């Protein structure tokens, strides 16, 4: 087995996320690769949640369907997931549950401590059978429960020890994983944390928000580090306030961001337009969930692409990044701040619940030497005749900040003069329109081109964007193993597009399939709008779950012989 798909599940409030995180971190420390998928409902207690860890000794990039190891924290969970078990999958379940049949291991949780210690015991059994070092697990328990006072820590450690003792003596045919390659030191981070850390690296100074799943953890991560990093974070009264606060802060020189999901973004669109008109840098992170309206608040989808491309009235430049994995979440957030500052306007980071919540083992994030303050023009400011909207060749005007130089800074949401004052001069208007649009060139220069991988002259080319990258990558690998010339073209920046970056690839492929987490193939439409190239084959998922390699392969299979 090259990877094991592990599912810890039960009711909300049972602490399964804690077990999952501890286990995942141990696996990462042991040198494994992981892809975590969190499945939860819009409620605090009860219902059914699951924390999937797919773990591999060599790199893996996508969630998969069949469960190799189910760790149910309640009986109902077994019913729910029974149908998803891999043929040789195992269920590690409480010995008290009535259950028969093969490949299920009754675990005498009560005997290890019971009650709230079931979680630690489940962690221990699972870790043990996956081949984790006991000392690694002990260290993790100490880190996690040490603060609670020695007593708690000791109790947890003794449950751990007892469970490990029991598990070590088991003799079942559960196939563990080979030892990973000599483990480099890596971080365990999910998409939302990576965005927050990217913002820290980019020098974010202020963040504003109104809580909204699945974006909230971007904010909570920033808040966790705010004191240390000297960042001001404020919960706004609504999303409209959040975006306007960010604009106010950015106007005063603070790199600023907001984070939300589709519905909150809807309320921010007027502010996006304001950022554009006042030429104020603004970074907007949007973690998508299925809509319309409240939709499925805790699930995943890629249904807001077109809304993000076009939200806000009037015409203005913008950039939209769509990271394909956790590492890209970090790097593209840094870049988003730079592009926002270089183009003095709104820039988006578009992810989704799957990626937001998906922990991965990643190479250590590094301080982006190149960032800081690319607004090199600030130096040219002469306070006496400073004009915030001076008409320049590239449309970018020198940016001064109130109270930070002798210059008075005047910004206006109305059409304005170079000095920033409201105007009704209709001859000036088109010049200002063109000035703003000219900044698109700066954005275009900095575009992250799509990444191509797979067969060099593919008969089957998958086009995808954002979080589906890993699933497409693995589907391509499978197809290639089956002897097909398959390849992937993944866009981690979906706007603007530079056809020169990818048209050859598109046109040389025999068959092109767009893979999107939505029902209407929004990115394929965009490609056609920008290039004329019509993609006619589509794999779409819109049931709230992430796209897996299997889903793609099934989709291809359903397309029949021709594909």
């Amino acid at each position, binding site marked *: 087995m090259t990877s094991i798909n592990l599912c810890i599940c039960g009711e909300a409030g049972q602490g399964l996320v804690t077990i999952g995180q501890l286990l995942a971190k141990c696996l990462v420390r042991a040198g494994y690769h992981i892809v975590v998928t969190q499945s939860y409902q819009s409620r605090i207690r009860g219902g059914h949640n699951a924390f999937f860890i797919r773990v591999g000794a060599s790199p893996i990039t996508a969630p998969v369907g069949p469960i190799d190891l189910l760790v149910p924290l309640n009986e109902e969970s077994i019913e729910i997931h029974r149908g998803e078990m891999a043929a040789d999958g195992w269920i590690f379940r409480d010995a008290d549950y009535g259950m028969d049949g093969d490949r299920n291991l009754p675990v005498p949780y009560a005997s290890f401590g019971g009650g709230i210690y079931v979680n630690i015991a489940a962690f221990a059994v699972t870790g043990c059978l996956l081949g984790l070092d006991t000392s690694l697990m002990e260290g993790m328990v100490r880190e996690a429960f040490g603060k609670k006072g020695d007593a708690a820590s000791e109790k947890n450690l003794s449950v751990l020890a007892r469970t490990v003792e029991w598990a070590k003596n088991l003799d079942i045919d559960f196939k563990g994983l080979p030892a990973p390659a000599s483990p480099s*030191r*890596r*971080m*365990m*981070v999910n998409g939302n*944390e990576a965005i927050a*850390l990217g913002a*820290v*690296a980019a*020098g974010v*100074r*202020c963040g504003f928000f109104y809580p909204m799943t699945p974006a909230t953890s971007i904010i909570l991560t920033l808040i966790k*580090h705010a004191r*240390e*990093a*000297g*960042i*001001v974070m*404020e919960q*706004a*009264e*609504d999303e*409209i*306030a*959040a975006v*306007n*606060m*960010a*604009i*106010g*802060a*950015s*106007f*005063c*020189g*603070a790199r*600023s961001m907001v984070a939300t999901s589709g519905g909150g973004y809807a309320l921010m669109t*007027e*502010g996006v337009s*304001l950022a554009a008109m*006042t030429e104020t840098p603004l970074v907007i992170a949007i973690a998508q969930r299925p809509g319309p309206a409240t939709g499925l608040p805790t699930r995943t989808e890629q249904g807001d692409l077109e809304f993000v491309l076009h939200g806000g009235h009037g015409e203005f430049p913008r950039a939209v990044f769509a990271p394909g994995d956790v590492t890209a979440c970090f790097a593209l957030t840094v870049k988003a701040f730079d592009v926002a500052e270089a183009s003095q306007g709104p820039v988006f980071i578009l992810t989704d619940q799957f990626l937001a919540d998906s922990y991965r083992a990643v190479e*250590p*994030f590094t*301080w982006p030497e190149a960032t*800081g303050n690319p607004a090199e023009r600030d130096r040219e400011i002469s306070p006496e005749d400073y004009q915030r909207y001076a008409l320049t060749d590239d449309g970018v005007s020198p940016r001064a*900040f*109130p*109270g*930070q130089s*002798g210059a*008075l*800074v*005047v*910004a*206006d*949401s*109305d059409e304005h003069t170079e000095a*920033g*004052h*409201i105007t009704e001069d209709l001859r000036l208007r088109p010049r200002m329109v063109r000035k703003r649009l000219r900044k698109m060139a700066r954005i275009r220069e900095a575009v992250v081109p799509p990444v191509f991988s797979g067969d060099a002259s593919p008969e089957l080319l998958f086009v995808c964007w954002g979080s589906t990258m890993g699933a497409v990558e693995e589907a391509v690998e499978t197809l290639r193993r089956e002897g097909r010339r398959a390849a992937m073209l993944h866009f981690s920046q979906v706007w603007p597009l530079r056809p020169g970056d990818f048209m050859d690839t598109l046109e040389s492929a025999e068959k092109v399939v767009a893979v999107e987490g939505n029902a209407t193939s929004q990115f394929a439409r965009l490609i056609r709008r920008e290039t004329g190239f019509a993609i006619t084959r589509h794999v779409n998922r819109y049931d709230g779950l992430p796209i897996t390699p299997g889903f793609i392969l099934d989709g291809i299979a359903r397309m029949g012989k021709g594909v």
Partner: protein
Amino acid sequence: MVTLADYGEYETAWCPGCGNFAILNAVKQALVKADLAPQQVLFVSGIGQAAKLPHYLNANVFNGLHGRSLPVATGAKLANPGLVVIAESGDGCNYGEGGNHFLAALRRNIDITLLVHDNRVYGLTKGQASPTSPEGFVTKAQPLGNPSIPFNPIAVATVMKAGFVARGFAGDVEHLSDLIVQAISHRGFSLVDILQPCVSFNKVNTFSWFKERCRKLDANHDPTDIHAALEVAMAEEDEIPIGVIYQNDRPPFEDKLGLTANGPVKTGETERREAFEKILSAYY
């Protein structure tokens, strides 16, 4: 010494006779009295006739969206607490479109000054009822008369224990500019609701209507006494008290966040990098 000349003189787009002219004078006088130079001050406004004011003086200006002056002002102040931030807009902007931000500002008590040009009508959009329009106020949009009762910003600010709550009148520039000076110097959120005649669209609350009713608060009114303040705030409109109605010394928001005048915009790259490396250590 800052002088009136530092704040300049500009052509306006207001109607002749509008109360906004007097408010503009009062604002300039207040800035001079407070000895604030244009560079120290940031005006944030929304959209409306009142919201044009910052274009008519020298200062830092952010003229944003209708209803959204308070959040922009809040963000600006948090980024650079050293600035004197003044939000300036109409009754529609602040109590209509922006009502939710007004409520939040009262709770937050951030050190900004809000000047509301309260002409009790939507001026720029040609005379619809605003949240402070009298009940029964007849307009083209409310031909049967405004069916709602007016918003009482003073009373709401007072029961919400806003830091500084005052009412001024555009017809008394001297008094108004004093109120503005006090509002600016108060550490915390300051509201000055300014009664403003609109000669074009409010034929009910005219200059003389206000003039007849406005009475400066008694010297022995104690603005720190919330009960007395509420009494004043709830008074019927045959006499309209002007002056500082309520005031307290709740700590401003910035203090609770531990912000100094420097604020987050001033952190150096080395400090930021060190913090970053330290933060990462939690993820291994």
